């Protein structure tokens, strides 16, 4: 087609995916001595391992789009020390999570939450078309609204808590910390908070209409037994919107101890502005925050020893070698590298230091959560991952 340059991936999509997977696998084995899941399966069926009755699950999206170049490739490993040295040795690590859906953050995260590749307009404030994991969880297990929450960036994620599927509804409360902070600063954002209000990197200035199950400031403050003054005081000492999200998530864990908590991190999507330094800085921060979340799990009696945590990106970003894109800046080409990510799972009953090489889909997350928690993800198009569920 006119204007379309011919130099795209030098590898075929399949070769590229395999190369990424091989790189991660070889690297992980080299640094952690991780074994292959297939070899271990014959020794100890996972189901036989202890599974606490009051199991809790945290899902953390390493979100905003990170590439292997800045994470698992040799030159990127310096950006993820916490994943490499603290979390991966305790995890079962899936090296090939291939996203075949639309690579927009809201629609892709919604697909993660429904187990179906959603196809709605990424920039529209609409609910997912299919039931979410939160709705399955609450309906099948008869759980109250306070037992599942989503903490998300404010760009369009406000409808992710429950679907438009009529036979469901009653999903998760959605907390948008930046909106809460803006509301708390009734006189308008001041300089000391501006770093927490970076917003909507892909579509700056655009603010979708708010409607849905989003929690407003006073309501949440009541639930968390947190004064607006405390909230703004804590916020002043934080470095980014994702720090604010993790702070709110920890408060939720402390006060409400939800059984299913979903935290969507997003700082690294600053890459859309084209500044490599800001993108890498955000990856380093996300790496640190993931470790902080796990520490919060281990230090909280409500969570310690009974929590399974999933960490996975929503998708990657464009390859440097695809001329249709502009490298790290966007995720528009749909090339194999931007579609191929990873997932780590840790917690009681999950084998540590194990690498799973086979290709799985992000759609497999919801049925896997269903197997762990005991609900049926009946509309999901994915399959439970036997290595961890």
């Amino acid at each position, binding site marked *: 087609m*006119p204007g379309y340059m011919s130099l795209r991936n030098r590898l075929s999509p399949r070769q590229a995916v395999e190369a990424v997977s091989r790189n991660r696998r070889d690297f992980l084995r080299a640094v952690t001595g991780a074994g292959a899941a297939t070899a271990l399966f014959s020794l100890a069926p996972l189901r036989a391992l202890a599974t606490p009755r009051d199991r809790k699950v945290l899902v953390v999206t390493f979100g905003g789009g990170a590439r292997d170049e800045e994470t698992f490739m040799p030159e990127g490993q310096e950006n993820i020390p916490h994943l490499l040295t603290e979390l991966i040795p305790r995890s079962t690590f899936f090296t090939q999570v291939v996203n075949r859906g639309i690579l927009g953050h809201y629609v892709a995260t919604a697909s993660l939450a429904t187990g179906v590749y959603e196809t709605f307009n990424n920039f529209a404030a609409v609910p997912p078309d299919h039931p979410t994991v939160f709705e399955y969880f609450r309906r099948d297990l008869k759980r109250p609204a306070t037992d599942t929450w989503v903490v998300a960036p404010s760009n369009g994620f406000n409808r992710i808590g429950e679907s438009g599927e009529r036979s469901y509804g009653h999903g998760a409360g959605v907390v948008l910390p930046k909106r809460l902070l803006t509301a708390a600063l009734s006189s308008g954002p001041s300089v000391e908070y501006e770093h927490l209000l970076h917003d909507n990197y892909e579509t700056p200035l655009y603010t979708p209409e708010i409607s849905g199950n989003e929690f407003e400031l006073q309501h949440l403050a009541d639930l968390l037994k947190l004064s607006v003054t405390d909230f703004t005081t804590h916020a002043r000492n934080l470095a980014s919107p994702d720090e604010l999200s993790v702070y709110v998530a920890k408060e939720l864990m402390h006060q409400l101890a939800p059984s299913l908590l979903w935290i969507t991190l997003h700082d690294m999507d600053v890459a859309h502005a084209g500044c490599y330094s*800001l993108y890498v800085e955000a990856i380093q921060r996300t790496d640190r925050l993931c470790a902080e979340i796990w520490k919060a799990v281990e230090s909280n009696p409500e969570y310690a020893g009974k929590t399974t945590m999933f960490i996975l990106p929503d998708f990657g970003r464009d390859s440097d070698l695809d001329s249709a894109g502009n490298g790290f800046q966007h995720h528009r080409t*749909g090339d194999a590298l931007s579609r191929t990510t990873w997932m780590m799972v840790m917690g009681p009953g999950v084998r540590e230091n194990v690498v799973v090489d086979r290709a799985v889909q992000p759609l497999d997350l919801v049925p896997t959560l269903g197997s762990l928690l005991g609900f049926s993800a009946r509309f999901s198009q994915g399959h439970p991952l036997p290595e961890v569920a």
Partner: protein
Amino acid sequence: MVASELQAGQFSGYPPQAQKLVIDHLTLLQKLPAVFVALLLREVIAYDWKFPAEREDLDRQLSYLASLSPEQLKAVLAGFESVRLSEELERFDWVSSPELYSQRLTAHLWASHQIDAFHVTADGYINKVDAAAPPEPLPVPRLGLMVVGQGVAETQYPLFRKLRKHGAYFSQVKPGNGFEKLLGAVATRASAHPAPYAHWYIDGGEEAAAPTPGVTRTSYETLAPVRTALLNKMEKAIQSGIGGPEALHSMMSQMRPEEVGLSAGTEHSVLNHFQVSVLAEGSGTQIFSTTFVQWSAREALRRARPLTLLARFAPRQRQRPMNELLSGKRQNPELDPAGSLIDADMGAYYTWLNQQRLSGADRSGFLVWFEGHREALAIGPSLPRGTESTSPVDLSELLGQLA
């Protein structure tokens, strides 16, 4: 809407040269799949302000298609014919709004899981065009010159990490009058090989010297009034409820130079359209000077395919909330030289990649210099790869090795 029913009168709204191009090839266009014609028209409608290299590309494609028999044409474009369209796209008036059609088509291809197949189809087509009509040999090897790190006194950042394996690293470059020497090299090449838009100088700050004959120039500071006008238009559009980011993107992609204070006259028309497209369609180019330089260099290489490109990065402003950055209301924003150096280092790598995508890549030269400092990296056919030199060297000598 089907291509076989196209009529000359439908193109009366096109600019003069674009209109002539379509009418001259109307019989051919009527034989092609609608999806392909719509995407072709997206390029054709801007023909009047395209660079010579882009016009040659379009002419070359049309000549190639015209040379094919009906059976060959069908085979070459089968992938475009087989795209499954929505009813909305089937009805869409892509003659009048090919850019908007392209945006909607892209969204549809993603939603219907056809985007990967479409990429394969597009690649295959371009490969056939390239094979049928290879580009003309260049009069002189291309040369890319990048200047990074302005305002940084010292750094621990490992510079040129991605480029080192491709070229020679020099740690004892004599920095005196370095930038003037690079500017001089551009002027010399422009004088020796004059051609429209063949030699470029892009600056992330103020332009360094008086205009040089034959050198196309653009800079972040020179375009400050344009950036402000553009951001004001964006803000007003949002406040008036334009209807979301896609509508905003569509509005921006159709922005004309005269709407943001640039002349639309014929002398500067092509460059002004280019500058507006960089600012209106490039993400982050309006607010970060490092992004402006990287994206301008990419687009200049992709579209104008210059023989010479000199790009100098300058410190960008620090990150602030996007809405505040885009409002452009804070005067004298704080700068981030250290972060800008990292951005520029990656920008230099991307510029080299983009230069290597052009014809004559095996003969091209590339130099990136840490401004005011002793570090540089040079890539060229006569320079050993992955090596390091600690011998004192002048930038003029390095340029000589690349010639």
